[in-house]
């Protein structure tokens, strides 16, 4: 198998360096420099340096993902990554799991080569702890500038558990959006929101940029897990809607690894294994909206939350101008957002849309309809689950996603049936919403 790129991680002062070596047009060495100023308060929280090696790995994978394009007609990229670690022997045991986990999530193959951390890799991991949070928290909720995140954050303030929100900022422009949402929510609910942000800005990067950025979500989840470990929390919550979590590839137009499968619940057992390998106890990733559509989530927003919808963004081709953020209005995310806001049953001031189709790809609205039509045919069969698996073989292992978790009084069969039924129901409601939306359009 030929490598698409290899990379070497090192530390220099307060910067993490990822040196890329690609061989597409000869040999080329590129240095992606990452400012770790914001990582330090987190990473030094743990006295054991190996605690944050997973975060280092995620950042390096993010750099590789951003810098190496998927070749035309190909699905998989292959990476080799030299990573400085505290315990090489321990890492060698974990490497097969890391490879399995990353390939399942993104479709890319990665081979981690652990190297002994020494003076040559810099002082990054030798700082004293300066992370002074007392009391601990129970749950870490992931907060981004998206609409689903707003729905999630809107609901956490009045919960009994101690919750902290965590964000990963890969683009500084997102930071102010997230701050606005967080501050407005806290003020509106007269409560306090504990929030941690981790900036992973690439300071000097390759000009070639892969747009799919499958690893950004991986980085967000691992950031959440690292913060959870530092604060003693046992759960990381991600508030993505049920249809978005599954992110089912359009049958025979897209294939599994071509649509990001990072959040697909069928990978939860892999996440649990990864958590145990790095952190000891399982830090569970939980999807509270797994059986809700986006429209259902928006309909549950509080009044102050509804006023913040226009501050969020969902677009795949977002245009950030000094005057504000413009959504293209024609990509898949914009179409699904429009549908959800239109059908939520409340009057909501949404974001402005340009309604400009960029590129010569398929039309997102037609894709949504075509996919919903195929889903509808499968869901109307007498044995809907089998028909759905025939259409989407990717979800065949979905019912096993919570094995080893949850209420011990529930039998394995009972849990699996509940997952099957919940998935079928949320997909049925998604198809109905699409039909309703079409009817509104036709009228």
């Amino acid at each position, binding site marked *: 198998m030929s490598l698409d790129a290899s990379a070497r991680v090192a530390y220099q002062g307060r910067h993490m360096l990822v040196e890329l070596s690609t061989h597409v047009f000869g040999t080329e060495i590129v240095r992606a420099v990452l400012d770790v100023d914001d990582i330090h308060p987190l990473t030094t929280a743990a006295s054991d340096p190996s605690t944050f090696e997973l975060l280092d790995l995620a950042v390096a994978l993010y750099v590789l993902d951003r810098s190496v394009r998927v070749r035309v*007609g*190909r*699905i*998989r990229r292959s990476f080799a990554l030299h990573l400085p670690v505290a315990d090489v022997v321990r890492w060698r045991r974990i490497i097969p799991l890391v490879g399995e986990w990353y390939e399942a999530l993104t*479709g890319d193959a990665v081979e981690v080569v652990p190297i002994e951390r020494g003076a040559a890799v810099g002082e990054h991991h030798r700082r004293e702890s300066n992370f002074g949070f007392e009391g601990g928290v129970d749950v870490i909720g992931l907060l981004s500038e998206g609409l689903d995140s707003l729905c999630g954050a809107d609901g956490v303030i009045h919960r009994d558990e101690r919750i902290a929100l965590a964000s990963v900022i890969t683009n500084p422009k997102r930071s102010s959006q997230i701050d606005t949402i967080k501050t407005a929510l806290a003020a509106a609910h007269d409560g306090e929101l504990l929030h941690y942000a981790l900036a992973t800005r690439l300071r000097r990067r390759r000009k070639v940029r892969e747009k799919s950025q499958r690893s950004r979500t991986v980085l967000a989840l691992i950031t959440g897990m690292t913060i959870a470990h530092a604060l003693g929390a046992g759960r990381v919550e991600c508030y993505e809607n049920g249809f978005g979590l599954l992110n089912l590839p*359009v*049958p*025979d*137009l897209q*294939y*599994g*690894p*071509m649509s990001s499968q990072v959040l697909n619940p069928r990978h939860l057992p892999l996440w649990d294994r990864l958590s145990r390998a790095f952190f000891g106890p399982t830090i569970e990733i939980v999807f509270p909206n797994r059986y809700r559509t986006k429209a259902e989530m928006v309909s549950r927003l509080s009044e102050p939350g509804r006023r913040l919808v226009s501050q969020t963004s969902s677009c795949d081709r977002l245009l950030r101008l000094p005057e504000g953020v413009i959504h293209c209005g024609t990509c898949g995310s914009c179409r699904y957002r429009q549908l959800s806001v239109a059908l939520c049953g409340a009057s909501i001031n949404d974001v402005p849309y340009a309604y400009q*189709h960029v590129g010569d790809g*398929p*039309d997102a609205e*037609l*894709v949504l309809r*075509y996919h919903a039509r195929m889903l509808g045919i499968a869901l109307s069969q007498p044995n809907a689950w089998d028909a759905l698996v*025939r259409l989407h*073989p990717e979800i065949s292992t979905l019912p096993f996603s919570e094995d080893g978790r949850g209420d011990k009084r529930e039998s394995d069969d009972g849990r699996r049936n509940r997952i099957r039924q919940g998935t079928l129901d949320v997909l049925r409601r998604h198809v109905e919403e699409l039909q309703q939306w079409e009817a509104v359009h036709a009228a």
Partner: protein
Amino acid sequence: MATDRDRFARVLDKRFGATAYAIANAAADAVARCAAYIESQERIADPNLRPAFQDAHRVLVRSQLTLPEFDAEAVRIRARGRDSEPAYRLALAYDDVRNGVCETLAEAFAIRQVRWVRGNIETYRDWEHVREGFPAVESALVAEMTRRNRRRFLGIGDAIPALLARTQADVLAELIPLQ
């Protein structure tokens, strides 16, 4: 100097070329053109699909004799599927045969190939004119692709004759009488 017909041909070229035109007008060679289009696109995306197909076919034939508990070869076929879109389609077709959805790999692969074309036609705005005509050729196209897959990958059956009209201008000359 470019004629109107040439300009028309260039516009067609952007949207599936002569194939789209043939489907939209229910031309006699619509199926053959569509099948040739699928094959040409697959050759571009994955020039080495033939050994992969033969490998999957060999595993399927052998598995009719014994069914191992852990199918390491299926794992290998699926791993090969990550190399390109046609290879992924092939891996899915392999699973279809294993799951009893289809009897032969050539047919299962043909169904996936035709669904790929149908998906494209259904989801691109500028292929709207083809959408109505496509269902009429769909089942014939599956049969044709099955025949071609058997010939192309396994060497079974008669050779596929090349299309008589090779250029778009030829196609248009056949379909649009000159004034």
